[in-house]
C-alpha cells in the first residue's frame, strides 16, 4: 500500500468513527405502542330532571366514607330551610363504599324523585 492509500484509508476510518454516532442518533426509529386496550364506552342517558322540587322527595346518599354523613346532614339542614316543601332524606349505604346496595336503590326508585350521592373526603 502506497502512502496515498494509507492516507485515504486513515481518513475513511476517521470519518466512520466521527460520523457513526451522529448518524445513529439521527436515525429515525419506528417503535411499538406500549398501551393495552381500554374497553369501549357505552353511553348512558341521564335520568330526566325534575320541573320543580316542590312536593318531591330527594334522597341524599352517604356512601359511608369518614365524615360524609356529617357533610350530608348539614346539607339536608340547609336545603330543608331553603326548600321546605321538599323532603330531603339522608340514607347511609350498607357496608363499605365498595359494596352495592340494591335494597336502597329499590327504595329510592319506589319512593324518591331524585338522588344526590357523594363523598365528603
Amino acid at each position, binding site marked *: 500500500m502506497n502512502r496515498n492509500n494509507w492516507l485515504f484509508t486513515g481518513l475513511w476510518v476517521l470519518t466512520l468513527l466521527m460520523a457513526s454516532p451522529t448518524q*445513529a*442518533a*439521527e*436515525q*429515525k*426509529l*419506528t*417503535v*411499538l*405502542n*406500549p*398501551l*393495552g*386496550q*381500554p*374497553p*369501549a*364506552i*357505552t*353511553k*348512558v*342517558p*341521564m335520568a*330526566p*330532571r*325534575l*320541573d*320543580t*322540587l316542590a312536593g318531591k322527595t*330527594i334522597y341524599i346518599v352517604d356512601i*359511608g*366514607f*369518614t*365524615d*360524609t354523613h*356529617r*357533610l350530608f346532614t*348539614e*346539607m339536608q339542614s*340547609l*336545603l330543608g330551610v*331553603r*326548600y321546605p316543601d321538599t323532603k330531603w332524606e339522608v340514607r347511609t349505604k*350498607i*357496608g*363499605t*363504599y*365498595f359494596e352495592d346496595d340494591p335494597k336502597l336503590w329499590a327504595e329510592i326508585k319506589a319512593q324518591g324523585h*331524585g338522588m*344526590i*350521592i*357523594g*363523598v*365528603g*373526603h
Partner: protein
Amino acid sequence: MVTTAFRELATSYAYKKGMPNIRLTFVPHPITGMPTDVVRGYLQGNNPVTGKPILDEIVAGLTQPLTAEDQATGLVERPIPRLVSVSDTEEKLVQLFHDNGWTDGLPIVLPTEERVAAMLKGTSHKPDELVGSMQPSSPHEAWSYTVEKVAVNAVMAGARPEHFPTILALAASGVTSLFTSTTSFARMGVINGPIQKELNMNAGIGALGPFNQANSIIGRAWTLLSMNLSGSGRIGQTYMGSQGNNFNYNNLLFPENEAQLPAGWNPLHVQQGYKPEESVISIFTGWGFIHADQSFSKDFHTQIPHWLQFISPFSSATLLLDPTIIKQLKTYEGFDSKEQLRDWIFDNTKLTAKEWREDYYSVQNFVLPVGRKGDEPYASWMKLPDDAMVPRISRASRITIISVGGETNLFWQPGDFGLTTSVSIDKWR
C-alpha cells in the same frame, strides 16, 4: 358531590362510565376532620371550581333540563394503534414516552420491532395471545393485553428474553403494581423455584437492594406494564396516593432464600400448594417495612409481638427473616415450621377491643361497616367490653414468613404486607 381533590378522578370516571355530563358539584377539600361550622360554611359558599354557589348548583343539577348530548346512547370505541404514530430519533422518542406518561421517569429501551421480536423468543406463547386484564383498583375499568404488548413493556424495562416468562406471569396475575388509593400502596413480588437459579437472582446479601439485574428489571417491568397495560398510575385519575411509595419503582421483587431454609420450613410456594420444582411468583400488598431493633439477649420469638404493634388491625403481617434468625428459631426456640411460628404470633399479638374500634381509620372505614352487617368475627368484636382482647391480625393465615438475606447478622423486617395471589411462571415459558 365530591371534594376538589377528586375533580379529575370524578370527571374522567364519569366519562369512562358513559355519563360525561353527569352533574358534579365540588366542595373544598378536605372535609375529614374539619369542624362542623366550617363544613356548613363550605356548603353555604361557592364551588371552588365553577365559582357558583354550591346549593344553587345542587338544585340546578336536579332541575336543569337535559341536553341532547346528556341523553345520547351508543358505543365509543377506543382503538390503540400497534405502532407509535410518529417515527423519530431515539432521543425524541424517549422523551415522547416520558411526556405521554408511559415510563417511570427513568431511561427506557425503545421497543423497536427487532427488540420486541427478540423478547418474544423468551416464551412459547404466540404474540397475539390474550394474557389477561388489569385495572387500577376494582371500581376502575379493566384494560386487556396480548403477549406482544407485555413484550413491549418488558423491552422498555431493559429485560432480556429469559426474564420474559416471569414478567408474563406478573401480567397474567391481573394485579397492578400501582393500586390506587389515597393511602400509598405498594406491592411485593417473591419468587420461588428453579427460576431463581436460572436467572441468577439474589436471595442473599442485599437481596432487597439494587444489586442484581433480574431482581431489578423484573420488578421495574411490573411497574411499566401496570402503567401502560391497565392505565394505572395516571396522577389525579387512576393514582391518588397522597405521598406515593418508593417501593413502586421495582416493587420489592426478590427470591426467597430457599437454600437456607431448615428442614420443616417450607418455601413460600410449597406452602401455597405448588411443588418445589415449580417456579412461582407470589404477589403481596401492603405499605411498608421497618427495621426491628430487637435485643439479642432475649428469645427472638418473644419480641415479635412488640414489633408488630405498628401494624393496623386492618392489615396483614409479613416477616422478612434473615436465615440466621430462622435457624435460631428452629434450633434453640423450638419452632419446627413457619406455620408453628405463625400460629404462635397470631395467639400472642393482640390489642384491646377499644383500641380496635377507635384507633384505626381503616378499621372504621372498612371493617366496622362489615361488622354492622353482621359478618363475623367483627360483629361480635364490636360488642366486646373495652378491655377485652382481640387479635391484631384478624386470621393466622394473614401472617406470612419469608426467608431472605445473606446471614451477616440476626436482623429482620416486619411489614404490613399480605399475600394477594401466587402465579405459575412455568405456564409462561
